[in-house]
């Protein structure tokens, strides 16, 4: 099931048997033939793939949850920043109809023992999908509460055996100006790129999401695969990922390239470090009415206990 597409620089190649146990391979075949993904044991494919949106099978992860009120599905799918489809908030929902998120493959490259190009199914197969309810704080000072469905990023990355030189992880969005009208104007330098320090990427909160509200992602939310790093501003959550590369040096990131004094590599949510043009102290929760006031923004978006140690001794005003 491995899509073999030799690439210069690939160090080692993963054998299909290593990544796809046969029974999964068979059941996925059935799935692709149209069968529904009904619970067939631990390694069963929980992801139903197809041209249209599908329901997902997952277990709720109670540790990573919140009892805050969920943002409505309608708001999460109509109020988006995804400049590949246009810069207005409604543009991604309006302009992403032609985008084809299936079939999908992801290149794994760089400082790892196992590299190559993998289908989305192969990438996710060994992992059980979990639902996690995270706050999402946009750098524009608004926020949502989103029930993501995905797999822990760290668990996926470990399968590729990053070497000791892998200090960072770089991500890349697909480049398809034909299907992504926003990529036809140079608002940002395409393709969109993002990155994490390896310890951030391996942190249990970091998630590779394939769905929300129990269903596969819509195009405007980054189908079929996106990153979710809940203690960082939303723009770190790169969408429609086609490449994951382990690097020794800190990789470039799109918004930092666009306006380095406004958007840093770290982009941790921090109410005490303002954006040069607006305050980050308070945020507007999407879904409120005309008369709802802003709420205070929490350090690391409320995940301080979990992640503060990653940044011990760092000047967060300097590394914004």
């Amino acid at each position, binding site marked *: 099931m491995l899509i073999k597409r030799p690439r210069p620089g690939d160090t080692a190649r993963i054998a299909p048997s290593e990544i796809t146990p046969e029974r999964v391979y068979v059941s996925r075949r059935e799935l692709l033939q149209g069968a529904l993904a009904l619970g067939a044991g631990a390694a069963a494919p929980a992801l139903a793939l197809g041209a249209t949106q599908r329901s997902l099978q997952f277990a709720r992860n109670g540790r990573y949850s919140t009892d805050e009120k969920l943002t409505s599905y*309608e*708001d999460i799918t*109509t*109020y988006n920043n995804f*400049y590949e489809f246009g*810069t207005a*908030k*409604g543009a991604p929902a309006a302009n992403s109809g032609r985008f084809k998120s299936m079939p999908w493959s992801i290149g794994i490259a760089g400082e790892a023992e196992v590299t190559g190009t993998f289908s989305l199914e192969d990438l996710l197969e060994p992992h059980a999908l979990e639902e996690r309810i995270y706050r999402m704080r946009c750098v*524009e000072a*608004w926020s949502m509460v989103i029930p993501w469905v995905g797999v822990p990023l760290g668990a996926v990355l470990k399968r590729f055996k990053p070497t000791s030189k892998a200090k960072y992880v770089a991500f890349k969005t697909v480049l398809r100006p034909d299907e992504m009208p926003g990529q036809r*104007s140079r*608002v*940002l330098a395409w393709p969109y790129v993002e990155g994490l320090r390896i310890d951030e990427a391996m942190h249990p909160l970091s998630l590779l999401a394939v769905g929300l509200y129990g269903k596969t992602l819509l195009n405007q939310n980054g189908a079929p695969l996106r990153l979710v790093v809940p203690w960082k501003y939303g723009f770190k959550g790169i969408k429609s990922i086609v490449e994951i590369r382990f690097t020794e040096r800190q990789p470039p990131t799109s918004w930092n390239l*666009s*306006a380095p004094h406004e958007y840093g590599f770290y982009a941790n949510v921090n109410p005490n470090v*303002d954006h040069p*043009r*607006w*305050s980050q*102290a*308070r945020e*507007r929760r*999407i*879904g*409120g*009415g*005309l*008369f*709802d*006031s*802003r709420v205070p923004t929490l350090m690391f978006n409320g995940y301080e206990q979990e992640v503060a140690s990653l940044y011990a001794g760092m000047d967060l005003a300097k590394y914004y």
Partner: protein
Amino acid sequence: MPPHLVRRFIKPLLFLLCLVPFLSVVWRALELGGTDLGANPVEAVQDTFGQWGLRFLVITLAITPLRDWFNAPWLVMLRRMLGLFAFAYVLLHFLTWLLLDQGLYWSGILADIAKRPFITIGFAALLMLVPLAVTSTNKMMRRLGKRWKSLHRLVYLISLLAVWHYYWQVKADVREPLVYATIVAVLLGWRAFKAARRSHARTASSLGRVRDGSERA
């Protein structure tokens, strides 16, 4: 266009037209006819008013050039109303920010006006619009005489600040602010061109008079 037609029909019609953006916000806020203000209603209201404030400023600024280009002196009869609508929409934009967005959170409000250049210049533009609105009555025009015209030239600076405010506010997509900047540049450029032509004509004619001796006569 005969003045009584402008006064009786065009002006009242235009007045109603100018109210449409405001009424559409009210309409959507009340969720009439299946409409709504979307996921972020405060932002939607504030942005709509800001956009129309800027549009009315530009439309007001366009009256003089349009009059010149299309030989339509009656257009000037509409200018005061358009300018007052510009002020009204900017004021609504500001009040939305103050009351709904910031919720009268004074420490944040004062810090934003003082520290965020894009808000500082927006605020400066609003403050400058106040004397123009106050002196827009016939009585004030008479009282100020020649100074009225100099005072109302402030609108050139206000328009530049307003475009700059918009340009500075966007994250990366500066295309729309640049469209406004271009329009304002043309509208102000026309005035500069006229002024230059006038002063050139004056110089030329006085030189001409000196040369042919008519100056002494």
